[in-house]
Structure formats: C-alpha cells, structure tokens
C-alpha cells in the first residue's frame, strides 16, 4: 500500500513537473548586452597578440614564482644537491620520465614536445622581433623553472608537490609552444592574404 502511494506520488510529481512552463520571459530585454558583445569591432591583431602574451606571461610568472618559492623552501636548510638536470638537454630527457609515483607524461607528450622544440626556431622567425623576444623570454623562464624544480626534486624525489609542479610546468611549456605554433601559422596566413 505504501509502495503504491509512493508510486502514485511519483507519477503525480512527474506529471506536475511536465506541466511547468518551459518558457519564461525575462524581466528585462537582454539583447542590448548581447548585441554589444557580438558587435564590438574586431580587435586589431596587436591587441589580441598582447592578450596572448599577457596570459603566457601570467602563467610563466605563476609557475616561476611557485617553483622559486618551493625551491627556496626545500633547499633552505638542505646541503647542496646535485641537480637531476644540469642543462637543457638533460631537462628535455627528463620529460619522458615518470615523476615519482604520481605523475607521468606519456610518449605522446614526448613526441609532441620533441617535434615542437624542433619547429619552434622556424616558427619564431615568422614573428616580429618584439614578439620573438617575448616568446624567447617566456620559454627561457619556463625552462629555468623546470631546472629549478628538477634540482629540488633531486633532493626530495618523493615530494609530491614538486612532482606535480614539474609535471604542470612541462605542460605549460608545451602549451606555450603550441600557442606559438598556432600564432605563427595565423601570422603566416595573414601575410599570405
């Protein structure tokens, strides 16, 4: 009997829900705000580029800042460590490794990174000198961060925070290189037109 009551209640509930209006008129006309957003004149290329670099710079600052702070915190009282990666080449190789027990960048990542690293010099030639300098500065910052984190990890290989930070920094680097690739392609298309 109770089960039947429940079933009846459910049926009535669903029937009542189905009767609710699916259309509601907003109190105010929302079109002006939408129109303003969609009819804003297309921003000139420079502005869009600046936005991309502003984002990239923000990411880099965050990563570099976090890694710096972490590095200082980890190494403050520790004896000098021998870094895992002593130069860019070693850092590149480290990317294929599993970071402790928590993080692993697979072979797809390694392939993408390797091919982008090869392409990046060519892509950079398509940018203006200022843009190129900005990209190089950002890449350098990220790689410095990677080296710092690698060095800290050598002292504390099981530090999960450092593992995660290194993993994320490699991903940021890949992301930046991908952005350079797409931006340079777009610049080339604009030039072709």
């Amino acid at each position, binding site marked *: 009997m109770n089960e039947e009551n*429940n079933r009846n*209640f*459910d049926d*009535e*509930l*669903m*029937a*009542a*829900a*189905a*009767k*609710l*209006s*699916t*259309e*509601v*008129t*907003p*109190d*105010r006309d*929302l*079109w002006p*705000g*939408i*129109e303003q*957003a*969609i*009819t804003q004149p297309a921003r000139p290329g420079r502005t869009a580029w600046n936005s991309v670099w502003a984002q990239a710079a923000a990411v880099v600052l965050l990563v570099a800042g976090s890694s710096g702070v972490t590095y200082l915190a980890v190494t403050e009282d520790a004896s000098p460590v021998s870094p895992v990666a002593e130069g860019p080449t070693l850092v590149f190789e480290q990317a294929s490794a599993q970071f402790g027990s928590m993080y692993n960048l697979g072979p797809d990542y390694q392939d993408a990174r390797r091919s982008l690293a090869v392409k990046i010099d060519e892509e950079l030639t398509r940018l203006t000198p200022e843009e190129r300098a900005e990209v190089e500065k950002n890449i350098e910052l990220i790689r410095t961060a990677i080296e710092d984190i690698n060095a800290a990890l050598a002292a504390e290989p099981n530090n999960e925070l450092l593992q995660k930070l290194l993993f994320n920094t490699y991903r940021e680097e890949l992301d930046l290189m991908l952005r350079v690739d797409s931006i340079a392609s777009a610049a080339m298309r604009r030039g072709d037109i």
Partner: protein
Amino acid sequence: MGALSAARAANSDYEAQAVAADAALEERAWIRKAQTADAAAFEALYRMHIDKVYGLCLRMTGNVAEAEDCTQDAFIQAWSKLNEFRGESAFGTWLHRVAVNTVLGRMRKSRREQDRIRAVSEGSSTPQTIGDSGGFRDLEHAINELPSGARHVFVLHAVYGYSHDETSEMLGIAAGTSKAQLHRARRLLAQQLNTECA
C-alpha cells in the same frame, strides 16, 4: 456533420503544420544570414528563442540575476559557434545544449552555487505556472531547493522531457548517474513537499 468536423479538424491540422513549416523555413533563413555575421538576423533568432533559453537558465540556476547572465553568455557563445551548427538537430535543441554548457561552465568557474539566492520568484515576474498542479503548488520552489546535480537532471528530464541519454550527454555524466540523480531528486522533493504540506 461528422464528416464536416473531420474535415475541419484536418484543415486545422494542415494549417498548423503549414505555420510550423513556415516558421522553420524562416528560422533556417535567419540562421543562414546570422552565419554570415549578420547581427540583425541573430537578433531575430534571439527573439524567437529567448523565452526558452531564459526559462532553462532560470530553472537550472534558480536565480534571476544568474539566469540573465547565463542567457546572455549562452547567446554570445551561440553567436561565436554559429558556424558549427549544421542543422543536424533543431536549432532550439542546439541552443539548449549551448545554454546548459554555459550554466555548468559558469557554476564551475564562479562557484557561486553555494551563495545563490534561494527564491526564484523574488524580484522576478516568473509566471506561476503550476496553479493547476494540484498538491504541487510549491514544486517550483522545491525544485529550486534541490542540490545542483539533482536539480539539473530533474529540470532537463522531468520538466524539459529530455531522455536520460540526452540529459547525461548534456551534463557530461553517465546515463546511470542521471537516473540516480533523478531518483534522488524525487526522494528529496517528496520529503520537502510532504514536510511543507504537514
């Protein structure tokens, strides 16, 4: 007499179908124009669908201001993705999907869900649509009180009539989760409505 009634009914059906077909053709024409970055054509589409999109946003967010923002964002998103619309589904359904994604994205981003204002009706001219729902006069309020996961599933499935497959696809969850959330929503609504009745 019977034949006359049947003929009238058939004629009425035919007229209704003709009106619907005209509306669909008109909508398709606006879509094509809007896809060439014609803002006036997009405004026509906005006027055709605003009540449906706003209604969905309002029921999913339970908050007038948030629903207005979501609606505007959804149309701005739709404008930027308009060339991706290939007519494989009805334009209204496509817009609904865009709106659902917008609501979920905004909720994830702002995490304002916990702070959302509870009463939909406050400061809103939301029509009282459940006057004929017997003992469920507070259903709208009760839905609004549901936790977001259960509310989203209940709104899409029970109010908008989407299947569990469609609902789960829109919300990015498994169909089984959609069913479980619906069960949870029903249970919570039953508790709430029974408490209020008592």
